[in-house]
């Protein structure tokens, strides 16, 4: 039987076949960019996105900083060093930001930032996309939710994942972005050929368990005598249909293009060679933890579940098989057995303080057992003279600010300096304390700077330039929209034009 072979397969076979890392997509970098990138240690981005929110500022944040003030965007902003107190073996920045002193050390705190006064400047309920910049993924409640749902955006993990500024080389990269959880990441249906924004779609989970993630990132090498992957033949079969004379509509062909782009990405991965030596497959899979009927009410199990993910994430980031991970956090980290959203998150302002105490304890557990756990695991030499954490940005964000569905001062807790881009060890407060939304609230709220500015800060820290991600009429990343209701402030008072004019800048005091 005569088999017609394809040129690319011949090249692959001739050069060593499967073991060769051969980028199949054209390089998007100029040689000088590539050299510059090669010289700099790779940056990594990891964000954990917690549902609900509602932790009071008094429980979430350290004592007000006062070491330094500065006028910025029509307000006085403040910052101070993160001051760790240790008592009875517990280290503490705030009630939530506390942990055993053996793990939350002054060295680790020096690599943290705590940011207060970064707002999504309108009402947004039950959103999962807002953490990373797609405000359109909300429940459509109210005028604001309905309005912004018309403006879907890629989330910043996907902006980075397909940016040549972030991935100057895809050598060794198996997954551009690791997505753990549903409805947090959004991107183009065809990232190589985006349309007008109407083709923004959810990006599904990379894996649904820690071992599945490991297996996807570190597949067994093919055995001896294995045939070449057929993925290029698969690509050709779609190409053949697309270019055939058989009747297809224009939109049919566009769908085939989308599929072919995905096959190309698969093809790239299958020819990727990792350089991390041996890695050990985890002996335990975190999915098994969830099979216990009592799992929803077992905070230790919630912690264990994410710690097993953390182990694989560290391996992945160290090996460079991916440099982006976004994680949705929906377990409660509590023994509470009822409806968390209605009975805890929505009751966090009850005067009896019961729900607030439950929220605070749950968030503290998450901080200690997951965030600190991962930060410590990342704080190992990555071969650049710095630690993996030093070259990374690890972020913890929450769905809401101090009241569920209100998005003022959404807590932003970060670890890592992104290869020296960020100054760390500080608590920065961007709130405009001269303007309070309402004097009648159980815990007051003040307008801050915009989430757009935070997202833009992240993208710049990761090496992207503003023209690469900013829309023509929007500084920072996201949509330009603000609306204040049921407050003593007008929208213009809370979010004047000046805060939009600075939204493209790196948030003050964060640039090293």
């Amino acid at each position, binding site marked *: 039987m005569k*088999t017609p072979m394809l040129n690319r397969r011949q090249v692959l076979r001739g050069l060593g076949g499967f073991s060769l890392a051969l980028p199949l997509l054209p390089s998007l970098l100029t040689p000088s960019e590539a050299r510059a990138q090669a010289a700099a240690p790779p940056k990594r981005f990891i964000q954990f996105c917690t549902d609900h929110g509602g932790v009071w500022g008094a429980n979430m944040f350290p004592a007000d900083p006062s070491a330094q003030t500065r006028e910025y965007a029509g307000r006085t902003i403040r910052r101070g060093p993160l001051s760790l107190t240790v008592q009875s073996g517990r280290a503490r920045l705030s009630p939530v930001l506390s942990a055993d002193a053996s793990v939350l050390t002054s060295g680790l705190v020096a690599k943290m930032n705590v940011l207060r006064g970064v707002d999504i400047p309108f009402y947004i309920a039950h959103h999962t996309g807002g953490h990373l910049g797609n405000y359109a993924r909300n429940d459509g409640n109210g005028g604001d939710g309905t309005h912004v749902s018309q403006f879907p955006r890629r989330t910043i993990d996907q902006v980075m994942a397909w940016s040549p500024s972030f991935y100057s080389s895809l050598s060794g990269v198996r997954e551009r972005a690791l997505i753990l959880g549903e409805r947090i990441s959004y991107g183009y249906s065809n990232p190589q050929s985006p349309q007008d924004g109407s083709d923004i779609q959810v990006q599904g989970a990379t894996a649904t368990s820690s071992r599945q993630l490991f297996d996807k990132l570190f597949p067994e090498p093919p055995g001896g005598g294995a045939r070449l992957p*057929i993925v290029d033949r698969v690509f050709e079969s779609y190409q053949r*249909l697309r270019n055939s004379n058989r009747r297809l509509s224009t939109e049919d062909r*566009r769908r085939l293009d989308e599929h072919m782009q995905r096959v190309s990405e698969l093809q790239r991965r299958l020819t990727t060679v990792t350089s991390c030596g041996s890695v050990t497959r985890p002996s335990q899979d975190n999915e098994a933890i969830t099979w216990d009927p009592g799992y*929803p009410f077992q905070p230790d199990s919630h912690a264990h579940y994410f710690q097993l993910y953390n182990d694989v994430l560290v391996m992945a980031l160290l090996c460079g098989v991916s440099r982006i991970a976004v994680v949705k956090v929906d377990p409660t980290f509590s023994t509470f057995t009822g*409806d968390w959203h209605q009975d805890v998150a929505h009751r966090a302002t009850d005067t009896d303080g019961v729900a607030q105490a439950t929220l605070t304890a749950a968030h503290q557990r998450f901080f200690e057992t997951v965030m600190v756990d991962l930060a410590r695991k990342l704080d190992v030499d990555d071969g650049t003279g710095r630690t993996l954490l030093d070259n990374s940005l690890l972020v913890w964000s929450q769905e809401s600010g101090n009241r569920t569905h209100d998005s003022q001062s959404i807590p932003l807790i970060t670890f890592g300096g992104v290869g020296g881009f960020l100054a760390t060890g500080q608590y920065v407060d961007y709130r405009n304390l001269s303007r309070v939304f309402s004097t009648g609230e159980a815990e007051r709220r003040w307008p801050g700077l915009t989430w757009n500015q935070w997202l833009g800060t992240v993208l710049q820290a990761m090496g992207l330039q503003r023209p690469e991600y900013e829309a023509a009429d929007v500084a920072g990343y996201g949509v330009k929209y603000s609306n204040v209701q049921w407050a003593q402030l007008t929208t213009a008072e809370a979010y004047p034009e000046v805060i939009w004019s600075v939204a493209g800048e790196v948030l003050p005091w964060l640039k090293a």
Partner: protein
Amino acid sequence: MRILCTLFACGLLVACQGSIVGPPQQPPDNGGTPSRSQFSCQASAVPAELPLRRLSSTQYRNMLTDLVTASLPADASEVLLAVRSSLDRIPRDQRVTPAGTTHGGFTRMDQTLQQAFVDATYQVAVDVGRQLTLSSTRLGTLMGACATDASTANDAACLEGFVRRFGQRALRRPVPEEEVAAFTAVAGSTPVDAAAVADVVAMVLTSPYFLYHVEHGATASPDDSRLDAYELASRLSFHFWQTGPDEALLNAAASGTLNTEEGYAQQVRRVFEDPRTAATLDGFFNEWWRLHELDRLDARLGDPLFDAFVGADRPGPELHARMVREVLDMTRHVTSRGDPVAALLTNRKSFARTEDLARLYSMSAWNGEGEPPDFTDARRVGLLTRPALLASGSANTRPIMKGFRIRSALLCDTVPPPPDNAAANNPINLSPTSTTREVVEAITQQPGTACAGCHNTLLNPMGFATENFDALGRARLHQVLFAADGQRLGERPVDTRSVPQVSPGDLRESQGAGEVTRLIAESGRFESCLARQYFRFTFGRMEDTATDGCALAALESAAQSGASLADVLRLAALRPEFRRRTFR
């Protein structure tokens, strides 16, 4: 105290901007026969195109399972078990909801193309190829004796024959010669070994004709967009069975009988009678009525108030699924008996097969055979009084959400979202002194607030109609009032009177679920809603009443005229819109 629901708690907007779709309607006894149709047919309208649909995750799994089973009957379970970890990576489809709401919608409408879908289907294909060819026994079963005999001279013919047989089943049509050549070329030169065959299998399972519903049409003429017989066979089987056509359908396509009206109608009847159709329609009713929104009912066990409320009827972890199953059994019963669409609303039989559910009806469990027993309580009037539509998982009923479900799911009304600050206002709690209705009225029906606009008219009245059932679905005359520690504080009579405004302008007062059900049945709006929802389920997209009016009107007309549910469900497949596509 427990929060009932803050979703629709009071805000400050001025007016309800929702809509009750359909023509204004006066009570029939006021004279004349009001028009009940919401849709009209413009014969010249061209329906929207839904380009190159991919198989849903359910369809993909079913198709693969059928293919493996047909290829290796004895080892199918073992093969499927071996590829399960890859199969589990196929992304589950998400419900695609109508614009502006997170409720409703069908998973069939999810046409996102995930990288994970391409990755996982590729891996499954490779794994299945490897498994089907794992031993000479399997190879022989898969391809025939020619694959394992000593001769290599027949390898090429053996492979080609396999590609034609396996390919036809997988791709749901005969494999054209040029594609046979493309598939066999993947194997390489003879002799053909197992690994080469595995690659061929993988190629078939990653083909666009396997993963997508590729439809070229019967001819190339721009004026003719009819599907060809094989495409039609696939549409029919995937619609009702969620998998590819069987031998009989393929034969009907091959012989040309599927292209005849009589032959096609015969196949529609046969396919509809197959048990796989009932399973598919379970999915339709489950998503249409949002039965999946019913959470576990045992989450609050241990809470003193909840324990006191449930008493001896402590819900187990399976009760919510049994409640859902009971409703779906009712839909199967109505379908199989040839009952009209309205019987979905009015069927009064209990399909409770377990004691825990039957106890909520104060009846004995049905053993699943013979005629199910009739409800013994006259207040049980049909769908609205089945526990799956009443239970809340807490000690408190949820009249607002009950009303919302009837409005938006059963009547297809547009209900505006709650105002921005709904959650910031007083929560609706169980009260130690007032009924749930009284609490809801006090918070959401304050004169002069925007809440009152929607809650007075669209939401609360519908929900109040079933307040003579508690949050487990048990009938009651009084609402027992509890303290947070479970202490019984007293009871107050429940009130089910309301003006449900089933149709615009219908201000008749009703009392209880029976009268609301009657008003709904009279209005014809439930049937219109069925037409709308079944259109979405059938065609995998939202309807456009201007260009899809013909299909919608036909379904609506049949349903409102008393046609059997089965006939209405079959009708969609008999429509010309089902048998052609739009090319743009």
